[in-house]
């Protein structure tokens, strides 16, 4: 159970027709660390996320989560095993309330069978009550409890991002993938996000995020992998990556 590697990416390749979006990438995410994946636009970061969460089947290579090979597993299986994610372009359930969004996250942890739901058995009532309480707790955690009964789409942008995190947490994950969680955030919101990520790590979660904001990446993450044109060009602590010549070139061009 306590092996140090929670997510192993081995020689992962994803091709779309002629385009190689992710090219033979190998790295490990260790348990209970904050790990960042960075790279210029179009480097294949989100594609890699999609391969991990089962939205895409990798062309080659393996994805190992918690000792299990999950290469090509369907997304709901992956979620059930304990990987939750947020999306780069927020994908909430717009016409459901904030609390309902979180409750969907609880889905795979619930046990009520069809007949329990149809007939509202005591088991179902108890479970509903329980998951509602848990969902409210999560909303308090991200500071959205006042908006529990609002439509998700009526939340302002920053709160939508936080709701996505709450929804992901509701699946009770071991590994949380955040796809550009700070995109479009104000400096204050970014600071709050960094605190939130730190708190989650303290609770035992492993965080694996894609982020463009260097202040956040350098501020919270312990290790970083850099992708460029689908290839891994650097890996290491923020200090190492910051000084890496290829990383500087990828971001700023050769003249830098």
């Amino acid at each position, binding site marked *: 159970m306590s092996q140090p590697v929670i997510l192993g990416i081995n020689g992962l390749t994803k091709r779309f027709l002629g385009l190689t979006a992710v090219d033979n990438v190998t790295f490990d995410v260790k348990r209970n660390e904050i790990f960042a994946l960075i790279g210029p636009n179009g480097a294949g970061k989100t594609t890699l996320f999609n391969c991990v*969460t*089962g*939205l895409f089947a990798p062309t080659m290579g393996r994805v190992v989560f918690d000792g299990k090979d999950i290469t090509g597993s*369907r*997304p*709901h299986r992956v*979620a*059930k095993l304990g990987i*939750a*994610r947020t*999306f780069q372009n927020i*994908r*909430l*359930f*717009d*016409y*459901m*309330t904030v609390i*309902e969004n979180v*409750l*969907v*996250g*609880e*889905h*795979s*942890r*619930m046990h*009520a069978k*069809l007949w*329990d*739901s*149809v*007939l*509202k058995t005591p088991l*179902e009532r108890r479970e*509903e009550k329980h998951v509602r309480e848990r969902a409210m707790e999560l909303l308090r955690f991200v500071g959205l409890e006042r908006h529990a009964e*609002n*439509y998700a*789409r*009526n*939340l*302002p*942008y*920053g*709160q939508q991002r936080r709701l996505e995190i709450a*929804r*992901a947490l*509701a*699946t009770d994950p071991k590994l949380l993938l955040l796809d550009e969680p700070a995109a479009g955030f*104000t400096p*204050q*919101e970014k600071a709050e996000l960094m605190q939130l990520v730190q708190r989650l790590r303290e609770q035992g979660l492993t965080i694996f995020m894609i982020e463009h904001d260097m202040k956040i990446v350098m501020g919270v993450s312990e290790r970083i992998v850099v992708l460029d044109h689908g290839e891994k060009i650097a890996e290491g602590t923020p200090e190492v990556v910051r000084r890496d010549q290829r990383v500087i070139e990828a971001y700023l061009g050769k003249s830098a």
Partner: protein
Amino acid sequence: MSSPGRVPRLLGRARRLTRNRDAIIYAILIAGVFIVPAIANFTQGTSSGVVLDQVANAGVFVLLAIGLNIVVGFAGLLDLGYAAFFAIGAYTYAMLGSGWLDVTAIHHAVHIPFWILLFVGMGLAALFGLILGAPTLRLRGDYLAIVTLGFGEIVPRIFRIKIEWTGGINGITALDQPTLPVWLTGPWAGQDFALTRNQVFGLDPVPYYVLIVMLIAVSVVLATNLYRSRLGRAWMAIREDEVAAAAMGVNPVIIKLLAFSIGASFSGFAGVFFAAKLGGIDPTLFGFQNVSIVILVMVVLGGMGNISGVIVGAIGVYFLQNVIIPQLPIWTTGAASSIGLSFLNNPNGDWAGLGDEVQRLNFIIFGLILVGTMLFRPQGLFPSQLRQAELTKGTSDQSVFDASTS
């Protein structure tokens, strides 16, 4: 009385209930269930059965609308072939609850009691819901609509072609009439044990009326339970964003199949009742225009996704189509003669007379009413309350405040 706070507390609860629009709709519907027979009896006298008969027929469509709402309103799967499951339920009763199978290759009539076939029809429709659902899982929107439309055309056609089994275009007639189940007369009354008694419903519409009201009541409770359950939320999540739902651990395949199957089961339920009430069925009763599309109109017009709204939509559209519009020629001729324009009522050259002209415009009038309703209330008559707030008030000013100051 003993506790002084009791009356205000009851008043407070009543006030909260009256603010809840769905509660009001249900209260009116329940009251209507009891008042309609009384009014019919008072105004129509001995022919009050005609009214109850109509209401019971409308009830069939209410059941169908509740079922289709699960597929279209909750899960967001546009199903244009819903009549197929209705037909399957009806033919289940027609074949297994009549002397018909004696004529077929089986050579034995099967008279299974109505009360059992109610559940057999439901189960068969659910099964066919799965069969239709399976190949359409990858389809969405327009493409799904086309495949389901095809299914809805195929099923009645099979019933029409397979003459040796289904009676073809003439259908199956002389179906058994439901008998009262034993628990109504009761072994405690000193009678032998039997599942049913020889107390047939006969031609009296009252038992059918009572039965359909009971079926609808049960269906509403079950559908509401589903809506507020884990499964209901999974349906809505699939409707809103399938990818995100899957990433949250919702298995889209199972959830969609359940939507098709459970939606179809309501239809099978309705089909058995419909066949038993009518006493004879034929394939033309289950077409696209007269069933599938009408139910969809009921669901959309009533307020997709909201059970009480859908019921109102079903009742409204049914009476518009079957009572009000057929009466229009009579009403217009009467109105014309009462204001001294009775010459309009007589044919004159190309003019066929007001009554006939209105008669010819039936579909246009029906269409205009539908288009008009959707223009003025695009969300349906009684949408789910949240969605209504969304469409009328737009985003709340609080959000704007938060967004601009954060």
